[in-house]
């Protein structure tokens, strides 16, 4: 097995002559600097990788026995060189059957110490192992998916595919938890969780306002003045809406229970918001009617109040 040599002294940034205290200090500083939970989400996975290297280096250099075994390899190795363990250095206690379960160490480490020693929980030490990393990510969802708690296939960074059922009551910014679906635990620790933050893809027709949905209801002026029965689409199919006479722009017509589903099983409302649209190119006949209207209008001022 050709593996790459790892210079653990370089990882911790200490000379080969460093004392145990120096190593511990360097380790603590690096752990503080690279801890994934101190990084913004975008840099978290990178920091987790780095922290893993740091942990591995400390696992060896922070342990007198492992360190002397490592030092016995000599100082001629450089980071990244092809490495095969010298005779007698093979791990005596790595049981093949357990490899996949605990294998969160490099092949180089495994070639010297086996994989069965993933635990760093030595008494009196700061424990920096993360028992199964949480996976955090954003998941874009459409309004349709929120409306009918659909199942949604996702692919995690590692390439693993899951199907997630979007629960009732989910909203923009809601965090979903998938228990135990994160990284595997090291040293028998519990697996991490997956946390998905939902990002709602804007819908061309519906706007979200809490549990309610707003939609525009464009009307001709005469429909708004005289009232009308109009057909309109809703997320639950087409409905006929009764527009009361004298409806101004901005009037909200409520369709109860056609908004977003809540966790308790009820639903928010859908509001059709009146927007009066004037004909931009009136026909000759329409012009005539509007001229008549203008002459005969009984409005008290030359234009509506306000503004």
């Amino acid at each position, binding site marked *: 097995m050709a593996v790459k040599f790892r210079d653990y002294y370089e990882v911790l940034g200490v000379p080969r002559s460093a004392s145990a205290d120096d190593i511990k200090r360097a380790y603590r500083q690096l*752990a*503080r600097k690279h*801890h994934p*939970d*101190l*990084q*913004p*989400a*975008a840099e*978290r*996975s990178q920091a987790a990788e780095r922290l893993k290297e740091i942990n591995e280096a400390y696992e060896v250099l922070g342990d007198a026995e492992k360190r002397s075994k490592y030092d016995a390899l000599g100082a001629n190795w450089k980071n990244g060189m092809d490495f095969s363990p010298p005779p007698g250095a093979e791990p005596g206690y790595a049981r093949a059957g357990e490899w996949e379960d605990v294998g969160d160490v490099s092949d180089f480490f495994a070639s010297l110490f086996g994989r069965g020693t993933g635990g760093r929980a030595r008494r009196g030490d*700061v*424990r*920096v192992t*993360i028992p199964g990393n*949480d*996976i*955090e*990510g*954003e*998941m*874009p969802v459409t309004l349709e998916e929120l409306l009918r708690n659909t*199942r949604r*296939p*996702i*692919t*995690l*960074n590692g390439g*693993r*595919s*899951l*199907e*997630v*059922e*979007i*629960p009732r*009551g*989910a909203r923009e910014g*809601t*965090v*979903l*938890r*998938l*228990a135990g*679906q994160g990284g595997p635990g090291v040293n028998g620790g*519990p697996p991490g*969780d997956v*946390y*998905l*933050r939902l990002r709602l893809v804007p819908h061309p027709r519906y706007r979200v306002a809490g549990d309610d949905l707003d939609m525009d209801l464009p009307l001709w002026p005469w429909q708004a003045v005289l009232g009308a029965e109009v057909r309109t689409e809703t997320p639950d199919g087409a409905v006929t809406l009764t527009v009361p006479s004298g409806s101004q722009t901005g009037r909200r017509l409520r369709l109860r229970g056609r908004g977003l589903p809540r*966790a308790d099983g009820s639903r928010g409302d859908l509001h059709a918001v009146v927007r009066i649209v004037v004909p931009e190119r009136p026909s000759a006949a329409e012009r005539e009617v509007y001229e008549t209207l203008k002459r005969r209008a009984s409005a008290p001022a030359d234009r509506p109040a306000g503004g």
Partner: protein
Amino acid sequence: MSVSTPQRTRPAAPSVEPSRRAELYLSNEELARAAGISMTTLARLMSLGLVDPIAPGFGSPTFSAATAERLRRMLRLHRDLGVNFTGAAIIVDLVERLERERNRSGR
């Protein structure tokens, strides 16, 4: 870390795991289990105001999944770096704020 959505045309699903029920809300017990702490520790964190229920009297599920995420982060900082709980809560707040500012300026 990002989660990518798969392509529209999915080939005869080779390794998609069966549907996982995503959790939105957690009860006290579920939150304690999610964070790997005892109910006593959870009660202590709550009394320190470091863990907020969604709304008192909401029924049995009282925490959001985001609270679990936050709490796990706090506990890792406590365990790995020796920060006390209040300090860990402050750090999580600051990192979240940093992230929001960065998202805002990045857009």
